[in-house]
Every structure is written in structure tokens, then in C-alpha cells.
């Protein structure tokens, strides 16, 4: 009996300590970003997951810094210029563990990461790659873990994130560092399209190295359905109006749903491509820095065109995934689907032949515009082995790294100096386009807007799906922009 109170007291004290400890975290908001993170993840996971490719990890690694620290290898790196493969001859790296955080835990994404890891160990044998991948939830688990690690000041040496504006939240919170030196020593705009670097630059600084590139503004076409209706599937209509005229023809030919859509984010993707067509690449990009106003009459036109397009679609629930929409094209129930180029894997897995069973072109009215999204790798503030991180980023941005990774993952390299011969037909087409096209950022996949803005646009699009209120959509878009542009 005497001991009971003592034990109880001890237990109470220890629980109290425990409580205080966790309380701190909760307090600092650690838990919420998690939530936030997973959310986005949920929205776009689908994309990411399926994407084989979402992995454009920007890992541009400019190790020149890392290299110089260690072994005076900086020469090599600096001299490297466009010839990044030279870094292979380098000093062997900064040494130590390099913990890299991703959600690439299986499928083609895992294959890609493994390929990249192999190159890393060849280029920098001194470093030990530590795989911090968190599986499950198509990235939502990983983002939750990442958010709490960052909040607790215990970052990995590098982590995966969508390139572009989605990193804004990390930048504003002071959680990642600029890595312009890495990009420069990789060859800067000699090897990466200048447009791409512009899209990645925030106040003159670049915060991540893209590992792979995806394209969002692709129309996937069922050849048989179009041929039956007397339309040439290989030839894209000149603009949205012509495309709508084709859809009328398809309807007349008995195709109930010429255009297939999925859940909210696929609708956002469709809407953003209509915006690109109606505003042009420059006008569209201006939407995100305030130089194009969201109440511009051209946006009104785009909203009207989008509303018109929705008359040709199937009905979709907000939470639907993308594969059912793409499958409708594969099965001939729909003629067109606007989807990112991860869809090519869906066609391949269903045994369809490129050019025979299906075709693809950029959404009408934007030939020569590349609506990109990319995965990328970052340098977190307070990374334990920053020099090692830069080695990693150099690997991700290197010719070998990008080739190996993208071949395995099914996406295209962010570098334009890689031979396309070994890539499959779709990737070859995409690589050609990427080299010459004007590059714009995707809204739906976090390249153009921050998480908060993306959520606001998604809600507006979801609301529009129910109300079909065009003026209301534009008002919502305007207020989303004013909330987020400040």
C-alpha cells in the first residue's frame, strides 16, 4: 500500500513530462502541416502515384560546393559546364550518410529511385545513400512525416517535392535553402530550358533540382472512335472552338461522352489547359504574378469555353480518380481525355499501341506550349550533411542520373542534352516538344500556385461543377488570386 502512491506519483510525473513534450509539437502547429500535406497529397497523389513520373525530381545537384569543401574537386565540377558527366571523375563526394526522403516506395518510382541511387554510388563512392522513403497513401504519409520532421528542426538531407510554386510554403517558412550554385555547376540554362528555370525561380533563387518532367496538357485520343466519326485522329483541331465542333460531330455519330473527366483535380487540369489556349502562354503565366488579371475578359471566355466543354463530358464525382476517365478512352466509351502524360502507362498496360490504337496531341490552341509539372529535390535548412546533399543533387541533375531515372520511371529528363534514342516513342515526342516549346506551369499539380491557392481553385472548380455559375466561378477565382497574391 505504501508503494502505490509512490508509483502512481512517478507515473503521473512521467506522463506529465510526456504530455508537455508532445504539447510543444502540437502547439507549434506541427500537426497541422501534416494534415495539410496529406491533403494535397491526396489530391494529387493520384497524379503522382500514377505518374510514373511525377518524379521529376529536381535534383540538380550542383555539388560544386560540396566538392570544393572536401577535396578540391571543385575544379572538375566547375569545369564541367555542360559536360556534367565529368563529375564522375570527381573526388568521390563529401562522405558520410546522405538521407534522402521520398515517397517512391514501389512500382516504377522505386525502380527510378534505385537507378538513381546506383548512379549516386558510382559518382560519389564516399557517400552512403540512406533511403528514407515512406510508403503508403501515395505520398500523404510521407508528407505528414516530413512536415513534423521539418517543424522539429530535424530535416532529412534532401526531400522530394513538386517543383515550382508548391515549394513556396517551404520557402516562406524558411525550411529550404537556395541551390543556384548546384544548377549553375550542372550547366544552368545550357542544359535546362531557360523557361523551366524561370518557372522555378523565386526572387532570383532556385530551390530545387528537377529530376523528371511531366506534361499536363495532353489530349489522349481513341483513334477508332474518331475515324468512325470521320475525324482524323492524328490531327489536332486548331483551337478550342474547332475542337468543340469535332465533339459535336462525335455526338452526332452516337458517342454520348466525347470528352471524359475524373475527379476535381482532373477538372482543374482541363480548366487550366483551356486557360492556356484562351490566354496564350504569356497571359497564362501572368495569372500567377498579377500581370494578368483573373477578371480579364479572356478569362471570362475561358470559363465559357470550359462550361461548354463540360456539356460533352461524363458525370464524375469529386473524389474520382483519373484512371477510370482514361479507361473510357481506352475502351472507346469516350473519344478524348485531357490527362498528364502518366496516362501513357495506362494505355501500355492495357496493351494499346501508340499511333495505332491511340494518339496524343497538345490541347487544341496551344501547340508549342508545354504545361509542365515536375518532381524535384531540395536542400533543407539545417541538413546534417549539406555537402552530401549537394552531391546527391548533382547526381539527380546529371546526365546519367536523369537518363537512368526517367527510363525506369517513364517520364522525360529535365535536361535537354540527353539523347532521346533510347526512350519509348511517347517520351521521344515529349522530349522534342520540351526542347522547343514554351514552358508554362501546371495549376493542378502545384507548379504554378502554392498549396493554398491550389485548394481555393479546386474548391471553385468543384463548386462550378455543381452550380455551372460562370460569373460565380470567375468571382471565386478572382478572390482566390487576391487572397494569395496579397
Amino acid at each position, binding site marked *: *500500500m*505504501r*508503494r*502505490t*502512491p509512490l508509483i*502512481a*506519483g512517478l*507515473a*503521473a510525473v512521467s*506522463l*506529465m513530462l510526456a*504530455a*508537455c513534450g508532445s*504539447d510543444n509539437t*502540437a*502547439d507549434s*502547429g506541427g500537426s*497541422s*502541416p501534416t*494534415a*495539410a*500535406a*496529406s*491533403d*494535397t497529397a*491526396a*489530391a494529387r497523389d493520384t497524379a503522382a502515384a500514377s505518374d510514373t513520373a511525377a518524379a521529376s525530381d529536381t535534383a540538380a545537384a550542383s555539388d560544386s560546393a560540396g566538392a570544393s569543401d572536401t577535396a578540391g574537386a571543385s575544379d572538375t565540377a566547375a569545369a564541367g559546364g555542360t559536360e556534367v558527366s565529368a563529375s564522375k571523375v570527381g573526388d568521390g563526394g563529401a562522405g558520410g550518410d546522405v538521407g534522402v526522403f521520398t515517397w517512391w516506395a514501389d512500382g516504377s518510382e522505386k525502380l527510378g529511385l534505385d537507378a538513381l541511387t546506383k548512379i549516386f554510388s558510382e559518382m560519389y563512392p564516399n557517400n552512403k545513400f540512406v533511403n528514407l522513403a515512406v510508403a503508403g497513401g501515395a505520398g500523404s504519409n510521407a508528407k505528414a512525416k516530413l512536415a513534423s520532421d521539418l517543424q522539429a528542426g530535424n530535416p532529412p538531407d534532401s526531400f522530394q517535392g513538386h517543383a515550382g510554386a508548391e515549394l513556396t*510554403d517551404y520557402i*516562406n*517558412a*524558411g525550411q529550404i535553402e537556395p541551390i543556384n550554385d548546384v544548377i549553375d555547376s550542372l550547366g544552368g540554362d545550357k542544359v535546362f530550358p531557360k523557361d523551366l528555370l524561370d518557372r522555378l525561380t523565386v526572387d532570383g533563387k532556385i530551390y530545387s533540382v528537377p529530376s523528371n518532367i511531366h506534361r499536363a496538357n495532353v489530349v489522349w485520343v481513341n483513334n477508332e472512335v474518331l475515324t468512325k466519326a470521320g475525324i482524323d485522329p492524328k490531327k489536332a483541331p486548331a483551337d478550342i472552338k474547332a475542337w468543340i465542333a469535332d465533339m459535336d460531330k462525335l455526338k452526332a455519330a452516337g458517342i*454520348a*461522352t466525347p470528352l471524359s473527366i475524373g*475527379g*476535381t483535380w482532373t477538372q482543374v487540369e482541363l480548366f487550366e489547359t483551356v486557360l492556356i489556349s484562351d490566354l496564350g502562354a504569356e497571359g497564362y503565366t501572368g495569372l500567377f504574378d498579377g500581370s494578368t488579371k483573373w477578371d480579364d475578359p479572356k478569362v471570362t471566355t475561358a470559363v465559357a469555353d470550359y462550361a461548354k466543354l463540360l456539356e460533352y463530358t*461524363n*458525370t*464524375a*464525382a*469529386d*473524389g*474520382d480518380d483519373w484512371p477510370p476517365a482514361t479507361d*473510357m478512352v481506352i475502351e472507346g*466509351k469516350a473519344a478524348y481525355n485531357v490527362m498528364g502524360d502518366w496516362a501513357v502507362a495506362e494505355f501500355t498496360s492495357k496493351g494499346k499501341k501508340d499511333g495505332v490504337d491511340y494518339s496524343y496531341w497538345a490541347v487544341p490552341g496551344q501547340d508549342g506550349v508545354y504545361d509542365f509539372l515536375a518532381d524535384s529535390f531540395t536542400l533543407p535548412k539545417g541538413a546534417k550533411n549539406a555537402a552530401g546533399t549537394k552531391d546527391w543533387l548533382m547526381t539527380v541533375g546529371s546526365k546519367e542520373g536523369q537518363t537512368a531515372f526517367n527510363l525506369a520511371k517513364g517520364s522525360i529528363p529535365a535536361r535537354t542534352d540527353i539523347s532521346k534514342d533510347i526512350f519509348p516513342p511517347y517520351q521521344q515526342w515529349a522530349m522534342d516538344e520540351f526542347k522547343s516549346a514554351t514552358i508554362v506551369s501546371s495549376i493542378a499539380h502545384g507548379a504554378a500556385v*502554392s*498549396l*493554398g491557392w491550389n*485548394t481555393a481553385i*479546386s*474548391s471553385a472548380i*468543384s*463548386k462550378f*461543377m*455543381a*452550380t*455551372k455559375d460562370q460569373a460565380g466561378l470567375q468571382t471565386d477565382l478572382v478572390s482566390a488570386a487576391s487572397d494569395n497574391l496579397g
Partner: protein
Amino acid sequence: MPDTSVADRETAAATPAPRPKRGMPTWLPGFLLVLPSIILIGVFIYYLIVKNFLTSLTNRNSNNLNLKVHFIGFDNYTRLANDSTYVHAWWNLLVLTVAFIIGTMVFGVLWALLLEKGPKFEGIFRSVYLFPMAISFIAASVAWKWLLNPQTGPNAIGLNQLFQLVGLDSLQNAWFSSNSKFNMVAMALPAVWQLSGYIMALFLAGFRGIPDDQREAARMDGASEFKIYRYVLFPQLSPVALSALIIIGHMSMKMFDLIYALAGATSYVAGVPATMLWAQLSTYKYGLAGANSTIILVVVAIFVIPYLIYTRRSEKKAGS
């Protein structure tokens, strides 16, 4: 040493009144034992409620390092009140809650009535009705997402396709995706499916708790079966009904997983305050999220507190 303590304990237990002077007050060990829970609940529930409310009064709507957090009064609340999407979310929640409560009550009571007299295979039926509850909302949503697919006509799948197969084409609809004021009734379907069995179990326990002699007495007095239920059994089940109502009602008001899995966090047609809370949190809008969760808390409290007072009173009555 152990011997002595055992002896001590026995003495203490045998003669509680004349405790040794050095011993601690009788309430202390008990208090120390519950202290951890008090502290944990205090920190994790009440402290955080206060903290959450304070956050809701600030402009902390971004995670920007340069943000100067200061109090802005009830601005976040007025912003929410003027947001038509948020108001619509509360309407959705109302429709969902009413449909959810009516649905589970109707099926729960019906099944309980059917099983109450102990028919053959009662155990099997009971398990069958209860089983859906063993599945999490998230897992069930995978199937329901397909069943409640909004496509109609040639591309229909799920329930709409089923309607076509049995020739009830006109019943096809877009379920919770339809632009109707009452689309959330469709969202209540999976919830009703999952929890009707639970309500059945509650009522079944209630029925079984009523001694058989009451029915026999009523029968002797010539009451019809209907009258027995109406005047003898149902009045005694009102506490069960009230508990069921409160349980379902507050579950419905906190409903998140089902809707998140079926419609995502940014859905307008199916959005409820809890899914909006998720969207606000994930975009670092802590102030708005705090305001939203405070409103949810107050509404749930309005619903639950009268019940707590009621049960406390009736327990006191029973005790005295």
C-alpha cells in the same frame, strides 16, 4: 520487508477509521491514480480547446516566417459566415445528419423488432446486421465510391447500373454528386448501412432488458400486441432512443472520413465543415481552421450537453 508491508496493508484494510497518523489522507492515493488522466485530459483536451480558440482570433493564416501574428478579433468568424461555400457546407451537414439519424433509427428499430422475439438463426442475423460496423468508413468508401458513381446511361456502373438491369432506369441519379439541395441524403446511405446494426444492438439490448412478466401482464389485461409495444415497451426504451440519437447525431456532425474518401477535401457538393477544416489546415490557414473547429465544437456541444445533463439527473434520481 514484504511481510511487514502485507501486514500493514491488512491492518489498514481491516480498520480504516483509526489510521496511523503518519499515513496519507484516504483520498490521496485515489487522486494520484486519476491524476495522470486529469493532466492528460487537461492538456490534450481543455488546454488545446482554449489554445485553438485563441488561434482562431489571430491572423495566423499562413506559415510565412515574416507573418506578424496578432489578434484580429472575430474576423475569421465573419469571413467564414460570409463564405457561401462554408454556409453550404453547414446545410450539407444538416441534411446528412437528419438523413443519417432517420435512416439508422428506422432500420435499427425495425431489425430490433424483428429479432427481439428470438427467431431462428437470430445469432446469424444479428451478426450480419452488425458486421458493416466492423469495417472502417475509409475501407467501405472504396466500395461505395463505385456504388454511388454518378454516371447514368450506357456508362453507368454501381447502383445506377443495377437500376438499369432491373428495369428501373428512371431511378438512376447522380447521388451525392447531383446538384440538388438534398444530395447529401445519398452520402448518408453508406453511413446508415454501417451503423443501423449498432442501433439495432442498442434497441435489442433495451428490449431484452424489459422483464417478460410485463408483457404477460399486459396480455392478461387484453392488450393487443401493438398496444403492448406502444404503451408498455416503447416508453421504457426512450433512454435507449435518446442515447442512440446522441451517438448518431454527434458522429454525423464530426463526419469526415467517409466524405473525404468519397468526394475529397475540396468538394463543394459534398463538403461539410470537417472536410473544410482539413483543407484549411493543409493550407496553413490556422486562424480560419481554428474558427471553423470552434464553431463545430459549439454546435456539437449544444447537441450533446443537454443529453449529459439529462443522464446525470436521471442517474441521480436512480441513485437516491
